[in-house]
């Protein structure tokens, strides 16, 4: 694989190159005490020198006192927001001359560069690709937006307190599926190894100054990633997990976790792979009918509603549905795990319920 070594200004050049090529460049920014993805114009818009501390139900930004551009892990937002927006119109219907005319809602798919996609997030995009593109039907909006997205990965140099991508086999390094991949190589000055993973990436790489990367540079990058792999805040044993969960619907742990779980739905909405949605039909008092869809959560009571009742009336059944789907039945439905080990569901659960801990508890008591 080709690669070049650049300094921070090289990344600035990359961002302006992307902008000049007509991409809206989105990347990590620091807003209201968290790192969220937003438009960036240069590396100065990145959370320079910031890191994060994450634990179950807790997230704090910390000043690292360095000049690193990528010294944090994933925040509350994921790229799903841009590929599968929270609210979308599906179609409009007009009624005239005694018939209905259905019109596909306009799809907005601006050319976007996702700058700073982590390995787990790239894997999550891959999982949603299977849901929306590769399982028989194609979601046209998702397809358009996916096609218009250029992916610039950043490999992780430190893992967060709730990360377990190493367990899920999705990170912290990246070997493909991106247009460009960046690894931040600590030192004075900090170097950035930029590799390309697609023709589009190669074209961008060509325009980038810097010097061609040599074996030693790739070795440095490998060590950075290795270090991140060694610092995972969490781990999850995946061996045999499908059967463990599918065969254990009456495990006492489900009732136990249901006591603590608020059924608030945060975990599902923060998760980069959760794809559930509901539809809403509306006719304005003076206009056409519209059908739209918006994110939904299996923690809602209505989610499993059949006329007159809900199948999953208890929180126990909803938590079980969520975790079993994520880690077990996802394999049956889409041929992979539904979890990439990003840790968002752990960090952003207001009461700090930890999926890795729950799996461990189910395993231990199953053994006993």
């Amino acid at each position, binding site marked *: 694989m080709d690669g070049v070594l650049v300094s921070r200004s090289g990344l600035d050049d990359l961002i302006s190159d992307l902008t000049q090529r007509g991409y809206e460049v989105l990347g990590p920014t620091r*807003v*209201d*005490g*968290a790192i*969220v993805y937003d438009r960036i114009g240069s590396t100065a818009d990145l959370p320079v020198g910031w890191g994060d501390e994450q634990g179950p*139900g*807790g*997230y*704090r*930004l910390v000043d690292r006192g360095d000049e690193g551009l990528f010294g944090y892990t994933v*925040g*509350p*937002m994921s790229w799903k*927001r841009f590929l599968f927006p*929270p*609210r979308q119109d599906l179609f409009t219907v007009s009624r005239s001359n005694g018939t209905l005319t259905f019109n596909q809602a306009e799809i907005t798919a601006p050319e976007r560069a996702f700058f700073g996609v982590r390995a787990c997030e790239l894997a999550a995009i891959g999982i949603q690709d299977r849901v929306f593109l590769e399982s028989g039907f194609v979601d046209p909006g998702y397809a358009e937006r996916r096609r218009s997205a250029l992916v610039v990965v950043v490999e992780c140099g430190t893992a967060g307190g709730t990360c377990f991508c190493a367990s899920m086999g999705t990170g912290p390094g990246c070997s493909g599926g991106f247009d460009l991949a960046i690894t931040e190589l600590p030192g004075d000055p900090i170097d950035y190894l930029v590799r390309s993973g697609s023709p589009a990436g190669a074209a961008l790489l060509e325009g980038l100054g810097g010097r061609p990367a040599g074996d030693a540079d790739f070795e440095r990058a490998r060590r950075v990633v290795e270090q991140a792999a060694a610092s995972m805040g969490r781990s999850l044993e995946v061996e045999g997990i499908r059967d463990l969960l599918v065969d254990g619907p009456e495990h006492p742990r489900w009732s136990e976790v249901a*006591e*603590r*779980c*608020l*059924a*608030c*739905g*945060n975990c599902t*909405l*923060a998760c980069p792979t959760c794809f559930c949605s509901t539809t*809403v*039909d*509306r*006719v*304005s*008092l*003076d206009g056409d009918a519209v059908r739209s869809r*918006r*994110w939904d*959560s299996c*923690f*809602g*009571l*209505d989610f499993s509603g059949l006329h007159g009742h809900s199948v999953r009336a208890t*929180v126990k059944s909803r938590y079980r549905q969520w975790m079993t789907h994520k880690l077990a039945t996802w394999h049956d439905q889409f041929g992979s795990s539904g979890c990439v080990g990003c840790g968002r569901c752990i*960090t*952003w*659960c*207001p*009461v*700090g319920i930890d999926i890795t801990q729950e799996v461990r508890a189910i395993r231990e008591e199953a053994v006993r």
Partner: protein
Amino acid sequence: MTGKPKLAVWKFASCDGCQLTLLDCEDELLAIAGAVEIANFPEASSAEIAGPYDVSLVEGSITTEHDAARILTVREQSRFLVTIGACATAGGVQALRNWADVDEFISIVYAEPEFISTLATSTPIAAHVPVDFELSGCPISKVQLVEVIEAFLQRRKPDIPTYSVCVDCKLRGTPCVMVRGGVPCLGPITRTGCGAICPAYDRGCYGCFGPAESAKVQELMKAWEGLGVSDSDIVRALRTFNAAAEPFQEVSDSYAR
């Protein structure tokens, strides 16, 4: 007379904010007025058309003998009765009297207590008559009000979710204030509808839409304790605009003990 459905707006003990919400639907107001006949809405019109009414929007809680009788006649005249707001749906802020001695309350506010006639409690409309649909919120949301009226006219199920504020917080993309700032937030147990505004303005949700479906009040309060919130502050937080809603009341009572 037109064949349009007749709409009436009724007021009981309240601040008028929920019925003002109807006038605040600036973009939809004239369309609504075109689709229904606004037959009785004293705040906006001195014209009054006799009942029965197809839809009644009822604001406010029952706090006097007179109102307890009046709501019965409202119900009789209404085909579809929608309560609007925390007062009508849960008793409102004035339900704080339910924990106090009303005579003492009267003497605090009025110099001549014998002039005031009032009930000892503030109760929601559903405690007096059957209610067909409840819109929560202090105040209700404009979007939800329009949705209920439209859905009624189109005979469809209104899109009024009963899950938590957190869902809309995430849809909106607000980083959770509780997780990122340790700010106590009632969002996880509060019904969505406001659009998750408080966290977007960097404060915890204060529960003005009342309890969500499956609200795990006790469990959230345990997490609040972990953030260092005192028992008395927990009681205050649960006793505001939906204090008498059962899931809130039960837990505030347990902390007050």
